[in-house]
């Protein structure tokens, strides 16, 4: 009798958990479709290993990725944006300028692009993007960046109208045909204070209202 009761209680618990699982299934499905930052960070950290300097530690790279997502989430829709011509000194400024309005955060688009990296890796190797070899990672990322850049001639971003190849700030890409998470991450990092400091070896403190102390001397050496 007692064992039958135990078996019964066990069965009830099993049934209850199965029912609970069924009830929770839509929420879990939505949770998978809306990856947690931890899930979204993994392929982006792999992308970061490709596009950012090799000297970054894992922790530093994670901090960059965290900062990038924080920047991504800071977009405000329905806000007037600067058009290139607003500060373009040489362009024939029409009295009426093009109206450009901000769109929503590009997070969903970027997560879709990261999923496509995973899809490509799984199709090819059966493993996620973050686990394939670095050379293959670079090939895939490079191809996707080239495709994005080809769709937007970079000189369109240069107000001087001359064909150049420079990497503007990340906001310049958002909403354009070149809006790819790998490209924007590069722009985010290499236009950041840390990116400049690590790359050029000096700390400039740009845009930080730094005063004039030391302005006539060589800028301080970078920390990296």
């Amino acid at each position, binding site marked *: 009798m007692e064992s039958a009761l135990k078996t019964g209680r066990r069965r009830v618990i099993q049934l209850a958990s199965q029912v609970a699982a069924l009830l929770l299934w839509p929420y879990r499905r939505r949770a998978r479709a809306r990856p947690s930052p931890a899930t979204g960070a993994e392929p982006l950290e792999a992308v970061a290993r490709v596009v950012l300097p090799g000297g970054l530690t894992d922790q530093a790279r994670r901090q960059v990725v965290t900062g990038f997502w924080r920047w991504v989430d800071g977009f405000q829709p329905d806000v007037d944006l600067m058009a290139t011509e607003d500060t373009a000194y040489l362009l024939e400024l029409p009295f009426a300028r093009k109206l450009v309005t901000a769109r929503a955060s590009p997070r969903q688009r970027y997560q879709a692009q990261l999923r496509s990296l995973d899809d490509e890796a799984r199709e090819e190797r059966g493993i996620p993007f973050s686990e394939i070899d670095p050379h293959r990672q670079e090939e895939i990322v490079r191809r996707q960046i080239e495709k994005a850049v080809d769709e937007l001639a970079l000189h369109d971003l240069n107000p001087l109208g001359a064909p150049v190849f420079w990497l503007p700030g990340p906001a310049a890409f958002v909403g354009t045909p070149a809006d790819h998470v790998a490209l924007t991450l590069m722009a985010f990092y290499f236009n950041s204070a840390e990116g400049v400091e690590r790359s050029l070896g000096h700390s400039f403190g*740009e845009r*930080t209202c730094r005063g004039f102390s030391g302005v006539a001397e060589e800028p301080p050496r970078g920390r990296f």
Partner: protein
Amino acid sequence: MRKLESQVCIIGGGIVGALVAARLAEAGVDRILVVDAGPRALVPAQRPRSARRWMQYMERPWRGDRVVARPRGAERAGGRHLGPTMYVGGQATHWNAQTPRFAPEDFRTRSLHGYGRDWPLSYEDLEPYYADAERRLGVSGEPDGAPRSTPFPMPPVPESADLRVIRAWAGRAGLPLHAAPYAKNSRSYDGRPACVRCDTCYVCPTGAKYSPDFTLRALEDAGKIELVPRVVVRRLRVGDGRRVEAAEALQTDTGQTLQLESRYFVLASGFPLAPHLLARSATAAFPTGLANSSGTLGRFIQGHPVLIASLEIPDRLYGRLHEQNRLMTRRFMREPVGPANVRFDLSAMAAPHLPYLRNRAGRIQLGDELVSDWRARSSGGVVQLRALIDVYFGEASRIVDDPRWAFPWGGPLPKAAYVYDEEAEARRNAGGREVHRLLDGLVARAGGSVRTVIGPRSHPHRGGGCRMGDDPSTSVCDSFGRTHDHQNLFVAGAPLLVTGGCTNTTLTLCALALRSGERIAREIGADAPLAPTTGLL
């Protein structure tokens, strides 16, 4: 309909409108009304956040500085916005505040060099007002060869290592450069702090850079003016005796019509709006527009084509030390070059080394490859030189109705149609050749190479359309900006330009505005003495 009455109605709350208002108020003129088509500018406390959002997200920092145009024939607005001049404070809320004076020769190009047109006043006539404008704006600079009765109100901000290197480099080629003057505090001045090198001058977060809304706010707080934003003047109405009786206006946020009645009107709405308004105020008695008995209204618009060059020099430049600060020389404004007497100003800055996504072979660079390329290019220096070349545009260059776009409240937008006639084209080409020759000479003597040259092209610092002159048959206004045809109507600002000059025009427009304000004040009977000059230094 609401009526606003005043003794002086200033249409346009930009830098010249603000200075006219200030001059009148100081002279004791009362009932000064200033109206502006745009909303009020961000108060200083809002500017730091606005600057950050601009830097991080490319958001327009001057919220609300736009009015949305509509396609002509359409009922709804969309697609184009008017700005950033549609804003209390106007363009000088976000200018780089470079404030050189014109050269004395700018006022006499026809009689000295055989091109252009002489102004109806001389540099010497305007000099006291230049000094006054520099004092009011708080201009910092160092002796630059311009004849002056007073020194700059402030010395220049401390020079960066980059500018020191550029100075030395140009010096090797026998070209002395000096600090460009700016309306930016190098020390606390006029209740505003010193510049602290934020390098975001498009929106100064500290108030160290002069902004016209500071003047307007101070006048308002002191009860000296009434400032009404979001008021668009659609027509001026002339009564008997050819005096302007009223300005018919629209309050754009409420839709209420306004009638502005005043003893004097000062049209300070800038280029091309001021000449456009006069043209749109045509009546049967004035079929080609007000103030247009000469037929020159809207014509002879001016500007100066610009050439920008990047030079690689062997000296190390960082380019990120103080990007908004430049050196310049007035030599070629005062000593024309070549058989065509080409005149231009020349300013120099250190260009930052930028990360390249593609290398020169066209390959996309990632990670360490990008860094290596960036570092390799950063061992030298890139100097960016800018030359504003003096040309003169003839009668064919004019303001026309834009065929495609209209104001949301009706009426076509203005469009500046520049035409390079034979003379202007020749001057532009000669200017380009002479600047190229100068660049080649610089690198040959001081070292380096010319990397890129763009221009001469475009026409920044545009103006004209209501040009000054002594002869009413060939000009719209006299040297005080008073229209020849309507005794109580003045024009202030860029539309008055007779020639475009070859340097930034704002300080000259400010000086003219102060002179106009003094004249109006004296006519009203107010006491408007100007500080006596002691002779040119």
